[in-house]
C-alpha cells in the first residue's frame, strides 16, 4: 500500500497529561484524510507532530518512509487553526515572503501568488495590510500561505472555523480540487461532522488523544447515524409522548426521542419535513413553543459512539 504518512504509536505527554495517546494511522497518497474530534481531543497536537513542529514523547512519524525531521522542507504545507499572519504585511507581501523562504524562483512565485490570490478571491485586497482584512479574508490568506510552495501534503487545521456558509462552500470546493485536480494529499481536522463527511475519503475519530474509529464516512455513518436534528418544545409538555408516537409515522424519520422535556427528532433533510411535523403537532391541538433545526453534530455522534457528551 502506498502510504505517504505513517504515524506509529505516537504519544505526546504535557507534564503528565497525555494529549495524544498511542495514536497510529496511515494516510494514503492523494486522499483527503479527516481528523474528527471535539475541542481538546488532541487533533492540533497530533498534526503538529505529523508536520514536525512538535517532537512526540514516543513513537515515530514517517513521511514517504523517512523520518519527518529529515524530509525535504518543501513537502508539507500547513494552515494552522489560529490565524498565523504578519499583521503589518500585505497579502501579496506575505505570500511572496513565504515563497522566498521556500526558495520558489521569483518568476514562478509571481505567477503563483497571483493565481492563489485569484483562486481565494483576494486579488482586490492584494496590497492591503492584514490588519485591514475581514475575518474571512484573513482565513483565506492563512490558507493561501500553506499553498505557495505547492506542497505534496497539505495540512488544514479546522479550516472552516469562523467562515460564513458561503466561504465554507468556496473552501470545500477548493479542497476537493486540490485532491481531484492536483493530486495532493490533504489532512483536515474538524469538529464538524458534515465537513468531515463531505470532504474526506477516510475519517479518523479521536478523543482523549486516542483513535476511536478510522473508516470511510459511509461506513461511519451507517454505524453512527446521520441527518439533521429538530429540537422542539411544546406548549403542553404532558402531550410529548403522544406527539412522539405520531411523529414516528412520518416517512424517513430516523428517530424521535425526548431529552429533558424537549422532543429530539432526527431526519434526513429535516427542513423539508418541517411542514409535516408542524401539521402533526397542530392537529393534536398543541402549540410549538420553541423549535430549532440544526445539523447532526459531533455531539450527537459522540453520544452514540462513546456514551458521553462532548466536553467543552
Amino acid at each position, binding site marked *: 500500500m502506498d502510504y505517504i504518512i505513517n504515524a506509529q504509536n505516537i504519544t505526546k505527554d504535557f507534564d503528565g497529561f497525555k494529549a495524544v495517546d498511542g495514536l497510529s494511522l496511515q494516510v494514503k497518497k492523494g486522499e483527503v484524510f479527516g481528523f474528527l474530534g471535539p475541542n481538546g481531543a488532541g487533533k492540533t497536537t497530533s498534526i*503538529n507532530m505529523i*508536520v*514536525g*513542529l*512538535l*517532537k512526540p514523547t514516543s513513537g515515530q512519524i514517517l513521511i514517504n518512509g523517512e523520518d519527518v*525531521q529529515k524530509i525535504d*522542507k*518543501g513537502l*508539507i504545507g*500547513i494552515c*494552522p487553526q*489560529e490565524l*498565523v*499572519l*504578519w*499583521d*503589518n*504585511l500585505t497579502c501579496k*507581501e506575505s505570500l511572496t*515572503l*513565504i515563497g*522566498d*523562504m*521556500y*526558495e520558489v524562483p521569483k518568476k514562478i512565485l509571481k505567477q503563483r501568488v497571483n493565481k492563489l490570490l485569484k483562486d481565494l478571491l483576494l486579488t482586490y485586497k492584494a496590497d492591503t*495590510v492584514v490588519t485591514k482584512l475581514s475575518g474571512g479574508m484573513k482565513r483565506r490568506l492563512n490558507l493561501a*500561505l500553506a499553498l505557495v*510552495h505547492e506542497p505534496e501534503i497539505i495540512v488544514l487545521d479546522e479550516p472552516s472555523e469562523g467562515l460564513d456558509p458561503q466561504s465554507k462552500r468556496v473552501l470545500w470546493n477548493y479542497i476537493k480540487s486540490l485532491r481531484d485536480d492536483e493530486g495532493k494529499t490533504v489532512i483536515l481536522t474538524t469538529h464538524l461532522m458534515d465537513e468531515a463527511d463531505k470532504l474526506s475519503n477516510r475519517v479518523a475519530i479521536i478523543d482523549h488523544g486516542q483513535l476511536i474509529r478510522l473508516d470511510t464516512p459511509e461506513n461511519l455513518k451507517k454505524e453512527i447515524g446521520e441527518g439533521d436534528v429538530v429540537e422542539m418544545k411544546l406548549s403542553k409538555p404532558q402531550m410529548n409522548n403522544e406527539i412522539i408516537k405520531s411523529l414516528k409515522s412520518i416517512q424517513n424519520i430516523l428517530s424521535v426521542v425526548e431529552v429533558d422535556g424537549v422532543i429530539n427528532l432526527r431526519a434526513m433533510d429535516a427542513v423539508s419535513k418541517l411542514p409535516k411535523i408542524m401539521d402533526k403537532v397542530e392537529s393534536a391541538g398543541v402549540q410549538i413553543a420553541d423549535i430549532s433545526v440544526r445539523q447532526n453534530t459531533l455531539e450527537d455522534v459522540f453520544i452514540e459512539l462513546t456514551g458521553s457528551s462532548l466536553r467543552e
Partner: protein
Amino acid sequence: MKFLSIAIKDLKEILRDRRGFFFILLFPMLFMLVFGFAFGGMGGNTPHNLAVINYDQGSVLPNNQSVNFGNNLTQILENAKYPNSNVYVFNVTQPSESNADQQLKQRKIDAELIIPQNFSQASVSLINNTISSTTNTPSASSSNITSTLIIRGDTGYINFGTTQGILTGILSQYKDEIVIDTQNNVRGTPGAQPTEYLNSKVEPIAGTGDYTTFDYLAPGMIVFAIILLATTVAASLTREVDKGTLARLKLSKMRGFDLLFGGLIPWSLVVVAQVIILLAVAIIIGFHWQGGLNSILLAILVGVIGGIASISLAMIIAAFAKNDRQAANLGTLITVPTSFLVGAFFPLPQEPIGTFMGQSFQIYDFIPWTHTLNALRSVLTYGGGWNDISFQVGISVLLTIILFVIGVALFSRTRLRAES
C-alpha cells in the same frame, strides 16, 4: 538571499508599526529633553577648579625672541571669563604633580592639566611650518615636533567631564589661533620677518565657556536609547514566536542565520536613526557638539556595535519570555538597571578590579555599552577621533561578539528547533 527577504520584512514591520517606532525614538527623546533642561544650566558660570602643572622649558622664535607657550597658555586659562560675565572659567592653581593627583582623589580639584617639557618647541615648530607653508619657502627647521598635553581626572566625576570638555575646546582653539595668527602676521608684512607672534594672545575663549553638565550626560541618553532597543527587539522576536509566524518560517527552508542576520540589518538602521535624531535634538537644546561630520560617522559606527549588543540581549530575553508582554517586562527589568550600570544617567564610582593593556578595568567594563558610552562621549563631547576610541571600540566589539554568540545559541536552542 533569504536573509534579505527577512530583513525587508522586518523593516516593513518596524516602519508600519507606528506606535512601536515612535516609542523607540520618542521615549529616549523625552529623556534627552528632560536631561537637557535639568542639566543644561548646570556647571555653567561657575569656575572649575583646575591644577596646571607646567613643565614647559620654553623655546626660541625665528626672530630670536624667547618664549614660553606653557606660561602663555596658563595665563589664558587663568584669565578666561564666561562670555558676557565677570566670572572666570577656571580657578587655576599650580601645585606639584603629586599634590595635584592627591587633590584629584579628594575631588578638591576637577581636573589637572599637564603641559609637557617640549610644549613650546612643538608650538614653535608649528609656527615655522605655518610660515613655510604660507610663504612657500622650505624652512630648514620645519621638522614636526609633537607634544601631548595631558588632561587628568576622575572619569567617574561629572565635574571632571565638564572641565575636560571645556579644556579640550580651548586647547584645540589655542592651536588654531597660533596658526591663524602666524598666517596673518606673515601675510600682513610681506617679505619682512614677522616680529611678535603671541603678544596679545591673552584673551577669553569664546564658545566653550558655557559648557554644562548636560554636555557630559547627553551621550548617555543615546546609549540609553540603544540599550532600551533590546526590549523592543525582544518583544518583536517573541511576538513572532507567540503568534506562530515563527513556526511558519521554521517549517520553511529558512535557517536560523537568515532570521537572525536578517533581523540585524533593519534594527541597525533603527540605531542609526536613533543616533542621528537624538544628537540633533541634543544640539537643538544646547549640547556643545565638538566633533565634525566625521564624529557623526564614528558615533554611528559605535552606536551600531552597541545596537548589535542590544539585539543579542534581545535574543537572550526572547529565548525565555513566553509572550511579548513578558518580553517587554523582562526587557525593562534588564535594560533599565543596565543603563544605570554603564553610567548612562550619571557616572558611577570607580572601583578598578585590575588592569588590561595598560588601562584599569572596572566591573562595568564587562558590559559592552560602557564602551559605547565612553566612545560616544569621546567623539561627540570631546571631539575625539578614531585614535581616541579605537581601544573602546575594540573592547565593545569583543564583548558584543560574546553576547551575540550566547544570544544566537540560546534563541536557536529554545525557539528554532522542533518543540519537545
